[in-house]
């Protein structure tokens, strides 16, 4: 097991010390960051502080210096977003800050994506995400998407006000194995259940795993509707997606 002092970045050490309180997460992250090269931790740092121009420049430099794209993504970009998710969950940072971090991650991913797809490297899984019919709340869903992408998933974002037919159409079109539905209104929450029923009617229910979330949704409600999993926040959404897709870090 690594120690905090093994992490070759003052910035990351200070962030971990200040913001990560859960022992299990702390130990896991220390082990992880201790094994990452200093120049990649600089990329993480740029993401955690929401500096998109730096993330862009540092990613290009790392690639030009010969670091493999997958390593830049894992050790730099994904590593950064992991800490961002935890800081948000614990209310150390809020939505505007997370948006800035996600923008920085995107600035780096722009350079990684084409290399990965050219070399045929598969994402963890392909996920369809959307807010259900009648509901236009999308902030929480978008944060989930950012962290899912940050964790190595390919996400197709259908947007808001998505009907059962659109969810089904997207699963078929993209051969996705995971569906995530978000709802913030009690008036629209039942549409999650209707969508699940539509998957059954279309004979597709066994082909996909379905996860649900959003402020009024509860684990009980999720189970009642026949969803495979419920996630309380964006960090949990990633954990749930990994579990459903059968992949671990």
């Amino acid at each position, binding site marked *: 097991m690594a120690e905090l002092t093994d992490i070759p970045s003052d910035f990351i050490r200070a962030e971990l010390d200040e913001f990560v309180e859960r022992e299990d997460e702390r130990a896991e992250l220390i082990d992880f960051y201790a094994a990452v090269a200093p120049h990649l931790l600089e990329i993480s740092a740029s993401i955690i502080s929401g500096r998109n121009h730096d993330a862009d420049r540092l990613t290009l430099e790392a690639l030009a210096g010969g670091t493999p794209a997958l390593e830049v993504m894992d050790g730099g970009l994904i590593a950064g977003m992991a800490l961002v998710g935890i800081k948000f969950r614990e*209310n150390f940072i809020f*939505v*505007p800050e997370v*948006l*800035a971090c996600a923008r920085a991650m995107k600035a780096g991913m722009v350079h990684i994506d084409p290399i990965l797809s050219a070399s045929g490297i598969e994402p963890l899984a392909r996920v369809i995400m959307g807010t259900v019919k009648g509901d236009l709340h*999308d*902030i929480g869903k978008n944060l989930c998407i950012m962290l899912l992408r940050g964790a190595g998933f390919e996400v197709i974002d259908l947007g808001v006000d998505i009907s059962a037919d659109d969810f089904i159409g997207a699963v078929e079109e993209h051969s996705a194995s995971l569906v995530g539905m978000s709802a913030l*209104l*009690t008036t629209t929450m039942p549409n999650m259940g209707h969508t699940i029923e539509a998957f059954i009617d279309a004979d597709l229910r066994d082909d996909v795993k379905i996860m649900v979330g959003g402020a009024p949704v509860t684990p009980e409600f999720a189970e009642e509707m026949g969803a495979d999993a419920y996630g309380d926040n964006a960090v949990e959404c990633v954990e749930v997606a990994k579990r459903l897709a059968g992949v671990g870090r």
Partner: protein
Amino acid sequence: MTSRGRVMAALAGSAVDRTPVCNPTSVATVELMDLVDANFPDANRDGEKMARLAATSYTELGFDSVMPVFTIIQESSALGCEIQWEAKDNWPTVRMARPIWQTAEDVRMPSDFLLHPDITCVLDAIRRLRREFGDEVAIIGKTMGPWTLGYHVFGVEPFLLMSIDDPGHTKLCLERMKEITIAFGQAQIDAGADALTVPDHATGDLVSGEYYREFLRDLHTELVDEIPIPLILHICGRTVDRMDYIAETGLAAFHYDSKNDPAESMAIVTDRIALIGNINNPQTLFARGPEDVAGEVIRNLEAGVPLVGPECAIPLQTAIENLKEIPLAVQRWHADQARKGPVRADDQ
């Protein structure tokens, strides 16, 4: 005391005969729509139906106020945002993925803003309610605050990113949008509104308490200076971390959410601002029965919250029985208190 007298006194921090029941956001439900044959979406666009549905909170539920503006998008529609009006069983919204403005230079109130049908229907509804009820019941209008208008016209994510990238420019946008808040508010005053709700969703679910202080505290104080009737700020979600700032603005009232404890909230704001709330919508009013509703009413009364009501726009499928329980529970509690007699110092 009349219902109106009670609400206005509580908003002014004066004595009342009993705690008024008030929802300054929306009390429309599908059952109420059926009862008076005034359905969404028409009741959001036609002044006569709007007034008819709004009146039910006084005539059917026994609340002390009426609120004809069920949505938060009337002015966004008049500004040119694309609106999805929805059907009877859902609220309308702005399609925020297609924002109409990008910078402060774009912020402009159309010259015929107050003549737009989605604005005039509100003014018409307020006039009708005033004619029908005179001084009996408090008529509360609603004018959106610049922060929420910002979500609608710039899109939520671009607006929040702007607030990080260029706080100065964001403040300029807010300053300009404030004029829209004032114009619609003033028109409702002219039509006969007694007080105005100003929803401005700088909630702890989205932004920090310091954000409220930096971007909105002074702006809300300016609204108080420029609008001559009591203003009720509405922010849902967690807000205890910013209640101290909110109490400094001079706003008459703050409509607060059940994510905040009544006693803790009262301890922060003291008598600087009147709290209104905070009966939980999705778990209690929507999903439980009258007994649980009464429990939350009493928690507020015991904490000394001066106006009691649901935390936010109530779910459209809420049972009337649960809503009627709010004024009943308030009356029972006051009767109990009266029976117990005034608390003497040596009782404690």
